[in-house]
């Protein structure tokens, strides 16, 4: 039955729950689990949508829940529930024990109680009070959509804002006991331009973590100009002709290709599945020597940054590829257990209803020595991908990405805009072909969907040149 009132023995956010959590963890260990982890979450989210000159949607949501994970040998059982009472959590533990078919009440694990609370939320208590009010958000979004009203060809103008606040308590049988508050804010602009049979889209998204005031200083005019210009440039573009060609990928969101095509293959989840071609390539060359790639959760304010991962570990700076040599995989607790790769503070999940998995945070290719112009000048016939859309990677490592804004490169110069391009390839073949990296590294926020749900990430790179890639078109 759904509870009609808050029970007395229930997890309380913002208070000490140590005794209660210890009791629950001890219960799991006493039933034969090797390891017990509790991830308890309280969330408070709001999204606002402005269309044309009206606010058309304000959607608050909030919730509470717990994810309980139990390991026995290398197996794990995961139960999620909205019931945060002692009884509810213990019932979930029993369910996980039963799922793993643990009948033997003995194990090699000893639970010595939780460590002293690591409170990462101390300086973040007021974040929820400091974020812009719905009034402030609405006013600014309406200013941004007004700024897009530059031309009668602009037929759709949208501005959107989302704020996700999350308070977590993480406790596990190795003594981990931590609490944290996360705050992500994102704002996006979308435009559709139309003229007779011609149509184009433009979009930009901005995001930050842990900066309550960030939205207030967002330069909506600059963003509107950028998205308007992009859309107008593409309005009368011809379809690109398909074929193999060299490409220059722009910085910022251009990094989505590395994220999707290579980054995912360096998560231990992929080793476990046997779906990465790089599992036996540690300390071997997998990319051109000009490529150094990093994943970290430390950059101040970046969308993929975190104080602790969702398993209670502080994030590290992981150099994945150094001068073309594979140096590290991203690992979580299950990854370490099953593949032997040490945890990197990369255990992440969308919310309590997902078990954590090894996931990227802020992932980027390090800057090189070339200017953007030098990259373009080195190509006689190719494609410049100024803005990338979404993409995906299949089970065999093959990726494809839509180019949102593209231009032909002819005799070392950018010429006419082209639409409908898709970049197709696989990481193993493309990484050795990244022959030049620019000196203009920039990052961009994004959302990454995978086995543990959608998580906030940053992608990035300088301008890079790929010597040859398949471009899908007409």
């Amino acid at each position, binding site marked *: 039955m759904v509870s009609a009132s808050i029970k007395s023995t229930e997890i309380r956010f913002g208070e000490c729950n140590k005794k209660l959590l210890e009791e629950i963890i001890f219960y799991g260990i006493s039933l034969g689990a090797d390891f017990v982890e509790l991830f308890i979450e309280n969330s408070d989210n709001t999204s606002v949508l402005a269309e044309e000159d009206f606010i058309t949607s304000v959607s608050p949501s909030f919730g509470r829940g717990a994810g309980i994970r139990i390991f026995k040998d290398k197996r794990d059982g995961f139960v999620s529930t909205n019931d945060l009472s002692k009884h509810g959590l213990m019932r979930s533990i029993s369910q996980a024990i039963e799922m793993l078919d643990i009948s033997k009440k003995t194990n090699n694990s000893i639970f010595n109680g939780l460590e002293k609370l690591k409170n990462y939320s101390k300086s973040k208590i007021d974040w929820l009070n400091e974020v812009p009010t719905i009034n402030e958000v609405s006013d600014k979004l309406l200013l941004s959509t007004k700024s897009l009203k530059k031309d009668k060809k602009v037929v759709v103008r949208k501005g959107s804002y989302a704020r996700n606040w999350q308070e977590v308590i993480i406790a596990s049988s190795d003594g981990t006991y931590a609490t944290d508050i996360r705050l992500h804010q994102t704002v996006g602009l979308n435009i559709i331009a139309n003229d007779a049979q011609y149509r184009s889209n433009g979009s930009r998204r901005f995001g930050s973590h842990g900066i309550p005031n960030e939205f207030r200083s967002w330069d909506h005019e600059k963003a509107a100009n950028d998205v308007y210009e992009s859309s107008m440039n593409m309005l009368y573009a011809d379809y690109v002709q398909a074929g193999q060609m060299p490409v220059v990928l722009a910085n910022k969101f251009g990094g989505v290709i590395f994220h999707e095509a290579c980054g995912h293959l360096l998560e231990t989840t992929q080793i476990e599945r046997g779906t990465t071609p790089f599992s036996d390539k540690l300390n071997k060359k997998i990319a051109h020597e000009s490529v150094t790639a990093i994943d970290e959760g430390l950059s101040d304010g970046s969308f993929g940054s975190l104080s602790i991962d969702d398993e209670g570990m502080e994030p590290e700076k992981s150099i994945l590829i150094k001068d073309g040599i594979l140096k590290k995989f991203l690992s979580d607790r299950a990854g370490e257990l099953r593949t032997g790769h040490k945890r990197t503070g990369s255990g992440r999940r969308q919310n309590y209803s997902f078990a954590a998995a090894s996931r990227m945070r802020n992932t980027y290719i390090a800057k090189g020595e070339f200017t953007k112009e030098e990259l373009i000048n080195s190509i006689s016939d190719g494609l410049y991908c100024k803005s990338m859309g979404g993409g995906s990677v299949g089970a065999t490592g*093959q990726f494809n990405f839509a180019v949102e804004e593209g231009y032909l490169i002819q005799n070392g110069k950018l010429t006419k805009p082209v639409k409908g391009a898709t970049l197709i390839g696989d990481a193993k073949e493309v990484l050795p072909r990244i022959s030049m990296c620019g000196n203009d590294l920039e990052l961009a926020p994004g959302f990454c969907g995978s086995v543990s749900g959608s998580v906030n990430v940053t992608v990035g790179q300088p301008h890079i040149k790929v010597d040859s890639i398949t471009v899908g078109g007409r």
Partner: protein
Amino acid sequence: MKMNATEITSQITTAANILNIEKWDYGASFSNDFSVQVDKGAAKQLKASQKQVITLRVWNKENLVGITTTSDLSEKGIKKALEQASIASEFGNKNEFTDFSPLANDPIQVKEVDKKNPLGIKKLLQILREAESKLLDSHEAIKSIPYNGLSESFYERIYANSNGAFRNYSKSQAAMYLYARAEEKDKKPRSSGSVKLGYGVEDIDIESCIEEAAKKTIAHLDYSSIKTGKYLVCLSPEAFLTMMNAFSSIFNARSIIDGVSLSDKNSIGDLISIPALNIYDDGLNDKNISSAPFDGEGTPTKKLSLINKGKLENFIHSESTAKIFNTIPTGHAGLGSKVSVSPDWLVVEKSNECSDLNRTLVHTNYQGNFVYIEELNAIHAGVRASQGSFSLPFEGWLYKNGKKRSIESATVAGDIKYLLKNIINIENEEELTTSGISPHIWINELSITGDE
């Protein structure tokens, strides 16, 4: 743990009275889900979840709507949700008023399905282990089943409003998916798979799931690249339904109002495909495992003709879009601050105006050259619904003189308007897929980009 719908409705009524909220509605969902994954016989991840979520809408004195979603169904949680929805209503859309669906009290058609009992994790695990083992044994090149799962779900949905509307249904659903990865020396790995649904695990044809996954994966082992160019194309039922769902904004009144559809308010009656094509939305179809008798606003689900003899016949609507179009809601609404609209389950068939079709084009018999597209991928990235264009990677075969060979990697690109008007055959046999029913559809010429 069982949701008590009457208790929740009563709690909302009481809290709404205290807060002086006279008009409200809510949609709620409660589910118990169980799923397993395996890795070469070992249990990989076993999952269970109990979820409860409620979406509340309230109307203020100016008849503006505010909304809140929460998983906290305690008395305190529901009161907070109503308060937040009340605050949100101050920002309600003054440009488009939303109301209760006028059909929210109409009778609904609840399908008499055989609701199954949970098998439990242990049984699910045993079944999946056996399926994985059989698939691994089916061919020496199949080295792993990296994506696999067996799940069962038991859920209840409710809609109620302050006007006395109250409706609910509960059902069970199960799914199995097996995606195998095959490797041969000096060749690239290949992957394919199969998904099967049922009301319960016992309804799933497991042997056919294994057989289909094995057959498809092995068939792709012998591959070659394809030369970039224009090809005669046959779309599998699944591929054609994927395409139509991706471009369903053509039928979607919400998308039309928002300016992101290829249609406009006056498009009803326009010839948008060849006259031989009929498309319905039929959420209540007996074969639709996921059918729901009412939508997010409580409007009954019904069969609706979308394309009749090539002409656009109806749009799908929510309450507010129907009001703008001076019609009635069609049972396709979600429940949100801005109510979304989406199709349920498409059924594609040949109309009786099919004399111009080239009936010699049957994918199992045709001896000429063509590309067979079995499955389209990366829809979210490769479809520009508002522009009508697509550029999508696919799994498929190149047929030459009656012999087929798997295509290494390729994308198909084109325009939905062109595609619908260049259908040159609709095969006779309709096939059931997880997203609807359709026959094979032949397109005169589409651009394919390959590695050559």
